[in-house]
């Protein structure tokens, strides 16, 4: 039986709530949006602090340049739009007006991934984490739920330097009651000896469900929340490889350049171990409900379970009790001729 989660607010709502709290305690916090403040919910900050809120219109590049200037003069700008428009329209400004001169700008986007659903690929973002992570000096985080988002937003304000946080559109399963989520760490949610599942964002809940399903088959999975893509908790990755010997990395992002790529790099540089990715393949998605898209583009707990079985096969041993035998199919089934 896989566990069920109560749905909490969307991480974009948590972001806006945290912004308002920050606004009350830190007069240097300013917020900039590009005609999406009703969707990113930064309008909530604008309502309470109209003097510290700037809506620049549909002009993402100009927005980020202005943020660089505000930071240059001691303000702490939080800059928001959909992940796709922010990272793809304003990447040069993030590079030249923020990352390169080391300006203290916080880029917080919403509608990350494909879970925005019906609006389709032009609004979706499967490349933002990769783009953010290649900016020298940037911190890159993908929170899973309300409590984690609030903590990360407060940390971003306290941190001196560029931070990217990717929030989402749909209501997010509640994972945490609160807690501390320092940059550069992973959070262990389950422990197990057979393999490690690392996930972030909405995929954390899917990873925990997969962990339950695997446990029913006698497979014990460690589950790590990889909310900090950069800096990455290399030590946790190394320990996972040493102690569990196989990994699955799950994220709502392209398989190229995101959490999976970062973990693979850390593995190759420390303790090589077999790893499988659960991520969007090298393709654009389409319009549909978020649940249909997670099914079609391979982002459910069932896909994590399949990847876990595959990686366990590569690990070269079967783990757990009798149940593990069913992991690769019924005992009397002919092996598929093309399956190694």
């Amino acid at each position, binding site marked *: 039986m896989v566990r069920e989660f109560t749905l909490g607010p969307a991480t974009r709502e948590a972001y806006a709530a945290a912004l308002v709290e920050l606004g009350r305690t830190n007069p240097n916090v300013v917020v900039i949006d590009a005609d999406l403040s009703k969707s990113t919910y930064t309008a909530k900050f604008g309502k309470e602090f109209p003097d510290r809120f700037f809506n620049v*219109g549909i002009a993402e590049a100009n927005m980020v340049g202005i943020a660089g200037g505000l930071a240059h003069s001691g303000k702490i700008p939080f800059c928001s739009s959909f992940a796709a428009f922010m990272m793809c329209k304003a990447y040069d400004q993030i590079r030249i007006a923020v990352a390169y001169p080391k300006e203290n700008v916080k880029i917080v986007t919403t509608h990350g991934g494909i879970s925005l659903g019906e609006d389709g690929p*032009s609004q979706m973002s499967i490349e933002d984490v990769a783009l953010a992570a290649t900016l020298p000096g940037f911190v890159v985080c993908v929170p899973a739920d309300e409590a984690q988002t609030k903590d990360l937003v407060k940390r971003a304000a306290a941190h001196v330097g560029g931070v990217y946080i990717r929030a989402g559109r749909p209501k997010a399963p509640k994972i945490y009651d609160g807690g501390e989520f320092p940059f550069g760490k992973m959070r262990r949610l389950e422990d197990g000896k057979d393999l490690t599942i690392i996930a972030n964002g909405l995929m954390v809940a899917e990873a925990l469900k997969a962990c339950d399903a695997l446990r029913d088959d006698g497979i014990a999975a460690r589950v790590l929340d990889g909310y900090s893509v950069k800096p990455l908790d290399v030590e946790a990755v190394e320990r996972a490889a040493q102690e569990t010997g196989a990994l699955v990395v799950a994220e709502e992002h392209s398989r190229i350049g995101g959490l999976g790529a970062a973990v693979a790099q850390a593995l190759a540089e420390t303790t090589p171990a077999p790893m499988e990715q659960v991520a969007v393949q090298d393709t654009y998605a*389409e319009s549909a409900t978020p649940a249909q898209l997670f099914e079609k583009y391979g982002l459910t707990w069932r896909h994590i379970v399949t990847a876990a079985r595959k990686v366990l096969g590569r690990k070269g041993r079967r783990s757990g009790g009798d149940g593990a035998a069913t992991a690769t199919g019924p005992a009397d089934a002919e092996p598929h001729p093309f399956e190694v």
Partner: protein
Amino acid sequence: MPLSVDDIVPKCREMRRDIIEMITAAGSGHPGGSLSAVELIAALYYRVMRHDPANPQWAARDRFILSKGHGCPTMYSAMARSGYFDPATLSSLRKMGSPLQGHPDRRFMPAVEASTGSLGNGLSIGIGIGHALKLDKTDARVWVMVGDGECQEGQIWEAAMYAGAHGLDNVTLIVDYNKKQLDDMVRNILPLDPLGGKFAAMNWHVMEIDGHNLHSVVEALEESRRIKGRPTAIIAHTITGKGVSFMENDPKWHGVAPTKDECTKALAEIGA
């Protein structure tokens, strides 16, 4: 066969009904900016544009680019009703596997000239097509529609400066000037006026019209065909949510689907 202006009038009502029904069935979408563009898109598809729904890849066709891609229900209705595909498909808007994606998508519908949805892109693509049509020595035209909020994107002005400087007279830009964007009215976010003056200063032929008066719309579109040596910008003054009283001039209706009751009310207002 190009329709007369009188015959386009009932087509506009049909489009408005389609838009309301499609967005209601989808449960999401953008009614305000779809309804404001009805007469502009109807005039293009039913009369002004040179196109053949039976032969959508015809080399000498005019090209229409809906740069404000969120207004696609209007274009989908015009395409279905002029013969590109079965109008029964309209009810599949935004559903899994439908060719009617939430924003125009060439992968699903090759007759759509550009995949849009990220605002600011359409005019540049149109200019590229305009250049190519001239290289191919066809007299086909490019019609690009942008939103007024969309005109805040810097790329629009890079493109405007370029098309003016290069005298690209086979490009017509239509601005659906409905005075509204996502968060608020345009004047409260970042005013554009004098909008026509900006294009004029960049060597465009500029016309300002009532975008709901079909006679003015058709006249302006046809006049742009005759302008040589300069691109044309048609600033079409429109009303967001036009045709449904409770949606008109209210930014709230930018991106919200009507409920079933609101749908019934809207259809009754639009009439048969």
